[in-house]
């Protein structure tokens, strides 16, 4: 499938799902749950650009995600601040702009992380991202303007654009983000950039020797991955309406964004999507029917089970089956001839 065609197809599917769900579902809770699933589609796709394509494990998803959320908080309070200190009156900043700003902030931090960890391979990179998450969380905890450790209440605007309630608006925005991030992932996969990423993943030294600009490619991967995570986090304050560091830097975001691509399959754009929809839905159902602690246990057990039994995820399983069938198709005629 050509890239342009894929973008159009993804947009059509996204719009169709949007319109159908907004017409046929009247229950508000559906949109609350679907928003979380879509958010995980964005997060796991973003994680996979760095983790799956380039082979660098990022355990700091929570940091990039929460930075996006907190940049929205700053922008949300901006009009009041400007009015109070400089007597300037500006209108409330619309959410799509906040999403772009969140992406820029987290992308910049991603770029910085890339520079800081250039010499680190594998496990050390993973540990550095884990440490980064704690450093950023400490900074937020000590920053009173955005609520510090007490957290902050965000009041949603009374009117939602595009009709419907505010949650439907958030859901629509997240759907757009999901389509964009999946489109980006798929475009990368089929491009020279994707080949470069794969070369780094398979053997960084050989790639460097073969003329792949590994430094620049790694910086592109960390920046892009961070930016998408920040964009996924930007609407969070309006979704939860109460934001505090403990919940926004929750380890669950990191675990989920690792578990979903691993379970779905890390080598293809569809893997994180399958993983996010599957795990996200299971978690939403488990949270409602059983308990929220148990749904995290399910994620952990699924993650362990999959890395042991099916290290290449669901996509890997399907590919292996298809290959086995292809092999059988080839050997059967020969067997018939022999008989």
């Amino acid at each position, binding site marked *: 499938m050509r890239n342009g065609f894929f973008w159009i197809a993804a947009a059509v599917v996204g719009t169709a799902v949007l319109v159908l769900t907004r017409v046929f579902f009247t229950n508000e809770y559906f949109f609350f749950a679907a928003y979380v699933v879509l958010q995980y589609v964005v997060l796991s796709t973003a994680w996979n650009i760095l983790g799956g394509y380039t082979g660098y494990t990022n*355990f700091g998803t929570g940091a990039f995600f929460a930075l996006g959320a907190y940049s929205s908080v700053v922008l949300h309070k901006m009009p009041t601040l400007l009015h109070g200190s400089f007597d300037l009156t500006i209108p409330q900043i619309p959410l799509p702009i906040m999403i772009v700003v969140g992406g820029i902030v987290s992308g910049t931090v991603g770029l910085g992380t890339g520079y800081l960890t250039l010499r680190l391979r594998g496990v050390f990179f993973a540990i550095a991202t884990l*440490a980064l998450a704690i450093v950023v969380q400490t900074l937020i905890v000590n920053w009173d303007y955005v609520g510090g450790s007490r957290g902050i209440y965000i009041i949603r605007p009374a009117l939602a654009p595009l009709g419907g309630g505010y949650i439907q608006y958030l859901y629509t925005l997240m759907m757009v983000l999901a389509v964009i991030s999946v489109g980006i992932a798929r475009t990368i996969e089929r491009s020279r950039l994707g080949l470069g990423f794969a070369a780094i993943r398979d053997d960084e030294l050989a790639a460097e020797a073969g003329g792949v600009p590994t430094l620049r490619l790694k910086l592109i991967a960390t920046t892009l991955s961070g930016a998408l995570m920040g964009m996924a986090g930007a609407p969070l304050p309006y979704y939860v309406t109460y934001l505090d560091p403990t919940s926004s830097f929750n380890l669950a975001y990191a*675990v989920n964004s690792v578990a979903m691509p691993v379970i779905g399959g890390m080598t293809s754009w569809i893997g994180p999507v399958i993983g996010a929809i599957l795990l996200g839905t299971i978690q939403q159902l488990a949270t409602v029917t059983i308990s929220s602690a148990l749904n995290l*246990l399910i994620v*952990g057990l699924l*993650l362990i089970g999959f*890395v042991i039994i099916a290290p290449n995820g669901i996509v890997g399983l399907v590919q292996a089956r298809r290959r086995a069938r292809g092999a059988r198709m080839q050997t059967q005629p020969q067997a018939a001839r022999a008989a």
Partner: protein
Amino acid sequence: MAVSLDLLVNAIVAGILLGGFYAAVTVGVTISFGMLDIANIAQPAFILLGSYAAYIVNSYLGLDPILIGIVMLPVFYLLGMAVYRLYYYSFESRGEQAIQGLAFFFGLLFVGEVSLVLIFGVDYRFVEAPYIGPSLHLGLVDLPLRMLVPCVTSLLMIALLQLYLSRSFIGRAILAVSQDGVALQLMAASPMRIKQIAFGISTATCALAGTFLIIIQPVEPSIGRDYIGRIFAICVLGGMTSFPGMVTAAMLIGIVESITATFYGPSWAPAVAFGFLLLTLAVRPAGLLGR
């Protein structure tokens, strides 16, 4: 800022005591990550398991927590051997990419934490022992026994381990496997068996480290996360494989954290340790005392 001398001295002493405890928490990772090249980020989950084991036995039988930790050593040793066996057959023998092994331990960490939440809830748990509470006063310096006892026991444990590694046959084999597994194989020893024993030892240290943790502070399941970065920071700073380097790094981090907490407030302390780690990784990945 006017820094009063006795405040500074007390902060440094408290940091050294804290560092002794950090060394106990890190020694397992120095063995598993430094020597065996297994990134066991589930270490804090095992440590918490040790804390809760101490809590259960202490609250029902009233035994001394450190004694419980020593009794638990063989149990944790076997647990560690079992985990390594699973890890070996799932990842090492297949030659899988490190990313899956890392995800495995990450999952283990998470499952451990959530299981503890489901069983014990998120309440803080603590143990009772005669040395929790009183402190020694030496001139300007206060030595809380609740910090001093874990620190001394921890240094004793590390000294014994160092002796074991450098003198005993198995200990030398562990050092050998950390340097060159293939060469060990050529000497007709199985690297897998040696690594299994070493990983068992590294997990066994968690039994004691866990009891130290619950002596020093009340424990709840999510507390382990704070230690992931700290443990690896100390391990990397100390140069990965050397015990003396690791103890020095643990003391250093302990002192820096304690001074930060005293003069700038406890909420800044974690950032300092992790900032240290990020800087070390960026500037000198071989560690302060690395080869």
